[in-house]
């Protein structure tokens, strides 16, 4: 995907493969929510059999927690595509997901006061 083997195409030309070809045309993940700032942690080796190269790349990138947005950016894949790939990996229990706190009735929770204070202190210390 990021290989530069062709003289007549550069990254500005866009992907040679249509974005959702990687997912077999699926636009929605099989399971999971995958918030932009949810963290992904791999629990399998990238050498795991029967994976797409893109899924191996995800596993290789997530030995430490990485947010969904950062992952998509590093892999240069559309967010929706990454979500489908993550859904498959989650279903096969090859990754763990840490979603932001969520309340069924309210939706995602905004940070509480303790967190806000920590953020202010952290910013001041920058």
């Amino acid at each position, binding site marked *: 995907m990021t290989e530069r083997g062709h003289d007549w195409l550069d990254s500005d030309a866009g992907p040679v493969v249509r974005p959702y070809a990687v997912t077999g045309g699926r636009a929605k993940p099989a399971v999971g929510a995958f918030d*932009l*700032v949810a963290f992904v942690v791999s629990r399998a080796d990238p050498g795991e059999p029967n994976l797409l190269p893109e899924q191996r790349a995800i596993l290789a990138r997530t030995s430490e*927690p990485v947010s969904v947005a950062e992952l998509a950016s590093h892999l240069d894949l559309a967010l929706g*595509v990454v979500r489908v790939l993550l859904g498959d990996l*989650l279903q096969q229990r090859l990754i763990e997901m*840490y979603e932001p706190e969520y309340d069924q009735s309210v939706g*995602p929770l905004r940070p509480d006061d303790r967190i806000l204070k*920590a953020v202010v202190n952290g910013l001041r210390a*920058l």
Partner: protein
Amino acid sequence: MASERSDGHVPLAVKILIAGGFGVGKTTLVSAVSEIRPLQTEEVLTNAGIGIDDVHGVEGKRTTTVAMDFGRISINQDIVLYLFGTPGQDRFWFLWDELALGALGAVVLADTRRLNDCFPSVDYFERRSTPFLVAVNCFDGVQKHSATQIAKALDLDPDVPVVLCDARDRRSIKDVLIALVEHVMTLKQVAA
């Protein structure tokens, strides 16, 4: 599905949105404080531009790519702050909806030469009750209008802070972000 935080290594993510008109300096602002080079995440939209995007001559084009810039600030070992620049075009509101979910608040970056450009952002956050402040980007270091004049021109609620900033300056943007978080804390106290 693992949703509980089983070890101490997965940080908590906090989101702040950076909104404002096209070319007002959102990416510059993110670069000024981000510990990483601003990244871009892209979403591919199918059919979203039909009737809006001029596809004359490229009728085969059925998808549009929307890019969102973002940056990261590690607050401490447990908290990571993400700054997301909202896509400029109005028709990508649905992406704003996702960005605004659970966000701590928003910075609306304004340029006094084109103050109108930030109206849609102000409207959006008012409607969604997302806490926000207006940061006026003083490009040339010259402050042509007072914060009060700008608040009046934008018809802001009296409690919405208006601050002056330089989007290129790390210290200045740090102060803007601190002002936003403090504003959010004040709102919570009023509500409580």
